[in-house]
């Protein structure tokens, strides 16, 4: 790609960001949306989060991890324990990352 083509690609990507994020916000008139779908949307944010988190925790390069010797598992266990103890997201991040870095850098997992 030339620099010009790359710039066009990037501008197109930015337009795609607006278009997808504002998609159902843009029409002036209400689109006919069934009530059950509107109701079911309350499960969408949680599902999207889970869908990103689960593979990041239990998979490596598209395969389920086959060992307990993986720093992510104790990191997630400690972060989860912290969350249910204190209900704070910042502490969840810090405690889990501390375990991960200790195991990776200290023990070479």
């Amino acid at each position, binding site marked *: *790609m030339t620099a010009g083509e*790359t*710039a*066009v*690609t*990037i501008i*197109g*990507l*930015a337009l795609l*960001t*607006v278009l*997808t*994020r*504002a*998609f*159902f*916000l*843009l029409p*002036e008139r*209400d689109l006919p*949306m069934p009530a*059950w*779908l*509107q*109701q*079911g*949307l*309350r*499960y*969408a*944010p*949680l*599902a*999207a*989060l*889970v*869908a*990103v*988190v*689960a*593979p*990041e*925790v239990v998979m490596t390069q*598209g395969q*389920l991890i086959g060992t307990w010797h993986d*720093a*992510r598992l104790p990191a*997630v266990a400690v*972060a*989860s324990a912290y*969350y249910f103890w204190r209900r704070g*997201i*910042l502490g*969840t*991040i810090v405690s*889990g*990352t501390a375990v*991960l870095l200790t195991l*990776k*850098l200290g023990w070479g997992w």
Partner: protein
Amino acid sequence: MSLLGTTPAPLWRHPAFARGAREMSGVALGIAAWGLLTGVAMAKSGLPLPLALLMSLIVFAGSAQLAALPLMAGGAPIWVVWATALCVNLRFVIFSAGWRPYFAHLPFWQRLRMGYFTADLNYVIFMRRFTEPRPEPEQVPYFWGGVVTNWCAWQLPSLAGILLADRIPTSWGLGFAGTLALLGLMYSLVADRATLVAAAVASCAAVAAYALPLKLNIVVAIAAAVAVGLLIDHQTPRRVQPEDDLT
């Protein structure tokens, strides 16, 4: 609370703006770690510096950027890059349907602007705060408080990552901080048995469908969770919500 449209006070002076900013700041560290790594990835993909900065600043969608980078580096046709980003962004189309009951009454350009700035976590945190799908005056300042916080927490580390790519160790697994932020947020959304079951189904679906290209496993997981959630809602008719039927 002053009436809508009669307040000359700037949006950021509204107390709801501060609340929106505060509630987003809980996950800001995770967003920052993730932004930093995305910036590093952009610089290391061989994108020239000005274009990398432009991409971070205007595309403003981490997953789509990460999916597009290897294609652009490999000289794929432009439409392939765009089609890939479109698929990765499909979840935003689903979210935009969720925004509609809150913001449909606003002017077109404002809706467009708000749409552009809403990242995943803005949606998640806003919907946790305002569970009833109807407009309220403090929603717009709350929204912008979260958006400004998210934008800074993402863009500043992303730009730092582009500029300092060679000095940031990626082998430490710092990107996992972003996953842990999502983990905490995820737990905060599990409210009852229906959401717990929907989350369990979504996790299985996301792992099982992981081999699908273009992160479509996320769309599959959302569809599965919505279906299961609705099934549970209909089997256990707990409370009828009259506000769903009005308007």
